């Protein structure tokens, strides 16, 4: 054995040893079942399914997967065997294997809503929305809804909107109003988004997502008071909603209530300090109150949370140049901004002005 291979083998062993208790073996879903005992070789698919269910219920997920594989080897269209395998793999955190097993279920039972939802949910968890949404099209209204939801997450607003409109028109389609509103908002269809938001809050008045959507739509429409109350309702239902809180602060800033916005943003920062939006907007709230140095510090925090965060870079440069009169530092910040966004001519012009005034000093 060559030394390099030996080292990697040892490293893998060490990592395995440090990973804690070893999970149950997770055989890949192959078409060929592994060899089992003599007695087992005598069982039929129904018995294997029964064994798989029993093992699953006992929490013996490895045995459940083996038994399910034996069953579907003997009877490839036995959807129950695929379902048991999918559930057992999900239980062992084998999300990719589970997703494939759920796909097997969908292939054999195209109208199985549970399988579709599980497939979509696992696709989203695995970040495989873009490659998954299309697989759900043409499988009925429920699958269209999930396809639209995945498309929305993949940033495909137009497709998402089309699929979700199909879904909301079908039976039990009310659940898709929020995703549809989001998709329309992304497309700039404020009227459609407002319609969806209204439908969502009417049908799901206890869903903070619906109120958040409504707030976002109203804010985009310039309806500050409506947006504010919608965000506040969303936060009442779920105080942990970062976006609703930040966006509420944006509305308050627009209404000139900088101090109140500051308080809301500090609450958001307290809950999720690693996200830059609240820090950036806090800088604006502080600047509006004439607290320029604190504003600059808030912008710097935003940049710490997400280096190269362009809104914060831009605002920090303005703060240095216009409000604090620190032209040289403003030039530096503008330079960083322009490195990341070289096509912003306006900022380039500001940089020149700052540089000139820096020289004047």
């Amino acid at each position, binding site marked *: 054995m060559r030394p390099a291979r030996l080292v990697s083998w040892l490293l893998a062993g060490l990592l395995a040893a440090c990973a804690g208790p070893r999970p149950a073996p997770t055989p890949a879903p192959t078409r060929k079942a592994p060899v089992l005992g003599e007695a087992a070789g005598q069982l039929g698919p129904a018995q294997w399914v029964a064994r798989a269910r029993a093992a699953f219920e006992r929490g013996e997920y490895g045995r459940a997967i083996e038994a399910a594989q034996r069953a579907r080897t003997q009877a490839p269209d036995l959807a129950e065997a695929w379902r048991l395998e999918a559930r057992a793999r999900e239980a062992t955190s084998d999300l990719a294997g589970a997703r494939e097993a759920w796909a097997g279920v969908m292939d054999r039972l195209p109208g199985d809503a549970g399988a579709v939802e599980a497939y979509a*949910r696992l696709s989203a968890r695995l970040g495989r929305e873009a490659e998954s949404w299309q697989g759900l099209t043409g499988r009925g209204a429920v699958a269209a*809804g999930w396809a639209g*939801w995945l498309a*929305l*997450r993949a940033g495909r607003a137009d497709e998402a909107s089309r699929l979700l409109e199909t879904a909301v028109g079908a039976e*039990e389609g*009310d*659940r*898709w109003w*929020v*995703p549809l509103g*989001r998709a329309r908002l992304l497309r700039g269809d404020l009227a459609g988004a407002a319609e969806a938001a209204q439908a969502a809050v009417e*049908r*799901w*008045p*206890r*869903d903070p*997502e619906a109120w*958040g959507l409504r707030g*976002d739509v109203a*804010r985009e429409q310039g309806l500050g008071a409506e947006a504010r109350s919608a965000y506040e309702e969303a936060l009442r239902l779920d105080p942990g*909603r*970062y*976006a609703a809180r*930040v*966006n509420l602060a*944006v509305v308050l*800033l*627009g209404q000139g209530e900088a101090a109140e916005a500051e308080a809301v943003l500090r609450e958001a920062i307290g809950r999720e300090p690693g*996200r*830059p*939006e*609240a820090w*950036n*907007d806090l800088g*604006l709230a502080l*600047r509006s*109150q*004439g*607290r*320029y*140095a604190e504003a600059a510090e808030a912008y710097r925090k935003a940049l710490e949370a997400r280096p190269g965060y362009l*809104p914060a870079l*831009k*605002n920090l440069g*303005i703060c240095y*140049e*216009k*409000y*604090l*009169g620190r032209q040289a530092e403003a030039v530096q910040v503008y330079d960083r901004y322009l490195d990341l966004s070289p096509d912003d001519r306006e900022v380039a*012009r*500001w940089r020149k*002005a700052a540089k000139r*005034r820096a020289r004047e000093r």
Partner: protein
Amino acid sequence: MRRWALLWAALLVSGCAGAPPAPRQRPAPPGRQEAAPRARTLSEATRQARARLEALRRGGAAPPEPGDDLVARYEDLLRRPGTPEDRKPEILLRLAELAFERETEALRRAYEGEADIPPRDRYVNTVGYYERLVRRYPDSPQALTAFYNLGYVYGERGEVRRAAEAYREVLRRDPDAPYRDEIHMRLGEVAFDDGRLEEAAAHYRAVVEEGKEAYRAAALYKLGWCFFNLERYPEAVEAFHRVLADADPSREDLRRETLEVLSKTLLEWGGLPALERYLADHPEVADRGPDLYRKLGDLFLDASRYDEAVATYAAGVEAYPTSALCLEMERGILAAYRIRRDVEAAMTRRESWVRRYGPGSAWDRAHAGTDLAAERDAMVEEGLRLAALYRHGRAQRGQGEPGRALALYRAYLDWFGDGSEAGYEMAYRYADALREAQRFREAADAYRRVAEREDRRNRREDAALRRIEVLGRLVEEDPSVLDEWIESHADFVRWNPTSPRVPEVLLAQGDRLLAAGRLEAAAAVYERLRAGHPASARAARSWGRTATCLFRLDRYAEAEAAARKALAAAADQDERSRARELVVFSVFKQGEAAEAAGRIDEANRHFLRLVEEFPAAEASRIALYRAAEDLRKAGRDREAAELYERLARTYPGSDHARAALLLASRIHEGQGDWVRVAQDREALLWGSSEPAEAADALFGAARAWAKAGRWDRAADRYAEFARRFPHDPRVAEAWVGRAEALEAGGGDPEPAYRAAWETPAGGPGAYHRARAALALARRRLERFRAVELRGDLEIRLAEKETLLEEALAWLTRAAGVPFADVVTEALYRAGKAFEHLKQALLESERPEGLSPEELEEYDFLLEERAFPLEERAVGFYQKGVAVARRAGTVTPWVERMFVRLEALAPWAYRRPELAVTAVDPPALPPAPEAER
């Protein structure tokens, strides 16, 4: 002294054993000496004479009866011629004896009839018969007897010399006469009486040395007297001693008399030292020592020589501590002290009795069970009692230690107990003494023993009361006796249920319980007092205490009821005042309790009825204040304010009134009711005597009037403030306030603004000076803007520029103070003024009749002139921004300057910032079956 002694001696001699015989004891008639043996003594001779007389009677002649017949017959017999001469002495002797009997009887009757017979008239007939006999028949045998009897009768008639001659005649006729000793004694007596003491002593010494034994003791006694009178005391003592040393029991009387005279002799010889010397020299008479001491003490006492008397008695007691005479000598000592009024010494002596005669003492052992012991008990009981009371009295007057009295009381009670009336009294006194000695524990117990007695009750009430008193004192030192103290009151009532002091004690018991915090028990006692003695004044007074108990038990409603009864029953102003106070507090506490329970309306009802009923009470002010506070806390501000103002009206000038007015004004402030704020502040002003407080109130009133839009009043108040408090730090602010009010009211604010500017530059007024400068600038800028550039441009422009210059001057003054908002406002206004001037120039009226070219040229010239104005405006703005940056502060004027800079220099200042929204990833859609 000498005469006294003689008198004594005469008396003693007349009664002594050796006194002359009675006259009827006459010697036998000398003529019948052969017929009868010669008598050896006078009494023997008398017997013989009687026998012969009896023989005569039997011989034929009837014996003469005691009366005239017998005397007459003897006289007749004498007169008869036939009567033999040798019988006549005998007849005369008989007649003398009869006469003696009759005259003795007459003398006795005279004494009994309280008459008297002069000595010379006594025994006249007797003497006559005897003298006839010795004169006519001097040689007869009866003459000897007659001489002897004559001696006696002369003596009785006071004819001492004739008596002595008669006795001497007897001795002359017969030196060995049987009556020799008697005659010596008589002669001694006569000589003694005549003061011929040496002669008397010779007669007595003759008897002592040669006489019969029967006469020797008396002769020694008389001899002693002679020596005594001759002041030859050692010989006298020796003579008396020989009498004392005689052991013959038949002469005990003489020895007792000798003791008397020996005592006198010792008294003369040197007193106590002589006695002590005598006893030391003659131990054989030691048993007479107590007598001698006592008698000597008595003599000293009689002679008013009290100190020597005491010393003698005391020495006697010391020398013979077990003597039976000790008690008498003690009495003698006390008598001496009493006469001398030396009470202290007497009491001290009595104090010693316990030691001398007390149980277990030598004296006690010697006389146990005797009558003397009983006598001792009586004497010592009285003595100890008196001594204890005396010592106690002195201790009470601060003249001695109470310990002596206590010891005496204790000794008394230990010895005699407290069973008798006196003992009971002593037990009570003992308790008193313990109390006065501050031995309260023992005193309490002693009083208890007295008070508990069932057989005697006259001290029961006093003792029970005193017990309460001493336990009260004791509890100050030892709180553990508190229960006993309180119980002592109950004991008093139990022992003296009918005492008129029971109500007093019950009231006191309640008070003790109350003071001890046993409120329920105290209330019960007061209730008992009222139930048992409803008519008592103390029962009436107990209502107040009951109210106090109930109050402290937080039973305020009941306390109020009780206090009202106390108020109704109050006997004087003081009680009335206290009861009223209790009512007030009870009502107040009811309010407070309701307040604590959150029952605001109920609380206010109590508070307000307190105010209605007792408006003058201090608590009423507080109650009204609290009522208002409750309402305010409950958010009922308007009602609260009404009460605050009521308080201020009802109790003007009080601290609460001031606080209430302040709070009311704050409420009105909160409600925007500035008129009432101003009124409250003015009320505060009128009620305030403190300058600082008055200044605050006046200033607040001015400001409130301004906020109420009552500009005239606001201006007046500000002016009044500036006038009354010219050195107040707010004077500049006041002037500015007045100016603003005048300005708002259409008046001329200029003088006020200028006055503000004229105030001292330093201190807290600087800001308002700057504001005044700004206002003055602003007013000029308004006029500056009002000038339109029409008509003659140069003139109008000059006018406008002049106003601008003035305004800039004031703005420059304002900008000279270190207040960022003022500075930035000044700079902003300066910039705006230049912007306005630029715009005014550009929009100024164009001269008529200009050609297009000229007009273009004119416009160009205007722009040329206007452009620098914009630059100046930008310069002011930039300066303002820079000032704010340097100061590290931002004002609204800075924001405005940024706005103007963005408009005038967009390339440099228009910088749109970026607010970002946040987007959360699309969440899972709700499940169809989810709750909606």
